[in-house]
């Protein structure tokens, strides 16, 4: 449910927006949770090395594992960032929708008042 309650406890957000808000929130939450899962897949510096039996191999292995660890960390951060941008989009849309909802309520209230006076 989105939008602040109006003076009469009504919410002026139409159902399509509510569905989108709900999906946006759910998706933002999912991105947040999955970024944590992604982060936990491997240690930040990549998995522990194993001795290959030559300094050349061990050096190449260390470089590859370090690069994999770095990319993994970046990807986890990217997923979290996408979650944040979805939350921002959700908040921005909610503000817009609430403003529209409040305006509608004001118009409705004013019209009701005028009709009563008439």
């Amino acid at each position, binding site marked *: 449910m989105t939008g602040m309650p109006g003076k009469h406890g009504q919410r002026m957000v139409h159902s399509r927006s509510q569905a989108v808000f709900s999906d946006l929130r759910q*998706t933002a939450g999912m*991105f947040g949770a999955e970024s944590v899962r*992604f982060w936990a897949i491997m240690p930040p510096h990549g998995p*522990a090395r194993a001795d290959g*039996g030559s300094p050349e191999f061990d050096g190449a292995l260390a*470089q590859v594992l370090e690069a994999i660890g770095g990319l993994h960390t970046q990807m986890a951060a*990217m997923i979290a960032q996408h979650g944040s941008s979805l939350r921002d989009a959700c908040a921005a849309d909610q503000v817009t929708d609430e403003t529209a909802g409040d305006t509608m309520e004001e118009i409705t209230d004013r019209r009701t008042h005028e009709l009563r006076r008439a």
Partner: protein
Amino acid sequence: MIRPQPASLAPFAEDWVGGDIGGLQALAAELYGFVPEITGITAALNQQVDRLTGGDEGWHEPAASAFTRAWRRDSGTAEVLAAVIGQAAGIIGGLAAELAVIENALEEQAYAASRYGVNIGTDGRPPPVSAGPVADATTASKQHWALAYRQLYGQAMAKAQQARQQATRQLMDLYARVEPGARPVRSKGCVVRATPRSSGDGR
């Protein structure tokens, strides 16, 4: 989904050709294990984004298409990362399997030689052999087996070295695709580039 695994190793009991063969195989298995975890997460998020932005009732604002484009790009990068991890696992597991075969052959030859009186060192090194004439058949047999083992030991070490060199080249090629500052690697339209990291992290 079939989870890839490194090839099973030929049996061996010693550590004569060098390197931690079991450790290399375990590392390959660990790396293979990351692949479905990464692809599983990106697949689930792709599905959720499709649901969010699909259909008439979906999210269709300009911000939605910008988000979808950015996510698709990063999702593709994650797939490339998974592929790189799978390739690294293949190289490391392949070396482990090759070293195990060499170690196994060497140990079997050592066992055979020891039955003919050849004293093999605890590190697998062949004993010194005199190539001169021998007095009896037993000594001749021992000398034959000692020479044969010496030859096989040299070949085994050379093969192991060759296997390591090949694996090193493959890892370096792989690293060239993902190293910090490398030319962007494109796979399915995605770019993979690691961020430079500070050295001296104690590992």
